[in-house]
């Protein structure tokens, strides 16, 4: 009788212990840990490699020379995301985008492309562009570009046509606010992150 009572008491202890352990394991199972959320942004040359961005690797662009790049975005956020890639023309003094406070470069976009991306999906955007016209006002050079068949006149100038840069910004649509903004909110830290790229080039009229 004494042993049965002792066995029962131990059984109650085992019941409580097993219940608690199971509950903990179940909680871990149904609540996956927050993983790092990010995007990958890259620019490839005409052969879809990290090279040959310019003919003969010469970063001095001449008018009517067609350039073909590929801008890629991979969604590693863990859920479907609506993204926009903005291509902008800047010069040496153009303020670069800031990932810390989500401030984009203060120049209008040459082209903006949007897409809804599934988790782990990569979207590669062909970007065909060329300088149609080089306008010179003394030493100040401004451009007229053809970007994916659309003629654009950027507001940016450069002295002697040097140090232009093509910038690519990744924007996302935040579901809660409904606004497109530079970068994204990292779920694990709650902080805003941003990614952007730039390719420097010079322009000559001849």
């Amino acid at each position, binding site marked *: 009788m004494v*042993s*049965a009572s002792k*066995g029962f008491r*131990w059984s109650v202890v*085992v019941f409580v212990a097993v219940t608690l352990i199971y509950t903990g394991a179940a909680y871990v199972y149904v609540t996956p840990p927050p993983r790092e959320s990010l995007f990958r942004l890259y620019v490839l040359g005409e052969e879809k490699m990290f090279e040959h961005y310019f003919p003969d690797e010469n970063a001095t662009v001449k008018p009517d020379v067609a350039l073909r790049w590929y801008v890629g975005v991979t969604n590693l956020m863990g859920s*479907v995301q*609506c993204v926009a890639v903005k291509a902008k023309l800047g010069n040496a003094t153009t303020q670069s985008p800031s990932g810390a406070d989500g401030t984009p470069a203060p120049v209008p976009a040459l082209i903006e492309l*949007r*897409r809804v991306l599934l988790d782990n999906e990569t979207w590669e955007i062909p970007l065909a562009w060329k300088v149609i016209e080089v306008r010179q006002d003394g030493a100040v050079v401004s451009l007229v570009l053809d970007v994916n068949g659309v003629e654009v006149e950027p507001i940016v100038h450069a002295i002697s046509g040097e140090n232009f840069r093509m910038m690519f910004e990744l924007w996302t649509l935040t579901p809660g606010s409904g606004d497109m903004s530079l970068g994204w909110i990292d779920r694990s830290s709650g902080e805003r992150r941003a990614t952007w790229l730039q390719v420097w080039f010079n322009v000559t009229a001849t």
Partner: protein
Amino acid sequence: MSSCLNEYVERLHCHSSQGLRGHELESESSNSSLSSRLSFRRGGSLGMSRLAEAIVASLVLLSACSTAAASSALNPRIMGTNGPPIDEAEQRLRLAYAALNAADELGVSGAEVSVLANRLNNALDLLSDARVFEKIGNGTAASEYASRSGAISDSVREDAEDFGERTSEALFSKRFAIFALAPVVGLIGAVVFYLAYRGRRRPSMEKILRMGIRRKQEDG
């Protein structure tokens, strides 16, 4: 606007003829001299009347212009940058995306999310085309593309909400079942332990009893 003006002209004509009848119309022989005579003889009252008519006319014209401006602003045609249909389609697309994102986070199957994402991309493409049409000044096409985009967005939003609701219910049932199993698993563990405990105790009890019987037999 033209109808307002016509109405105004009619009213003005009516007022004017009433005014002529109401005032001393001594001679109907010459209409040309009538006004000068009237203005001479009844210069004060008629002058005021014309001033009043001019004010009324100005007010009517002003209100007609403001009505036209207001109707232009509210007209669902593309006006300038991002007219109402495009803005509305954009808003509907954002709502659809929010619903799709929420459904995906809830755990709706990848295949269903993929189908909805493709449809939403179609809506995005149509909206992009609408912007191009707007830029080249084809408001009708822009409006049509924007409304098609909005219709797709609405259907995506509805489907995403349905999928999300269904998945949410299934998820709740699954979680409830998982946590409801906790006491059952605990009970099974306790019973197994108890049986094992008793199973381990029985041979030792039998051994003690046998020893007691042997001692009694030896004593006896």
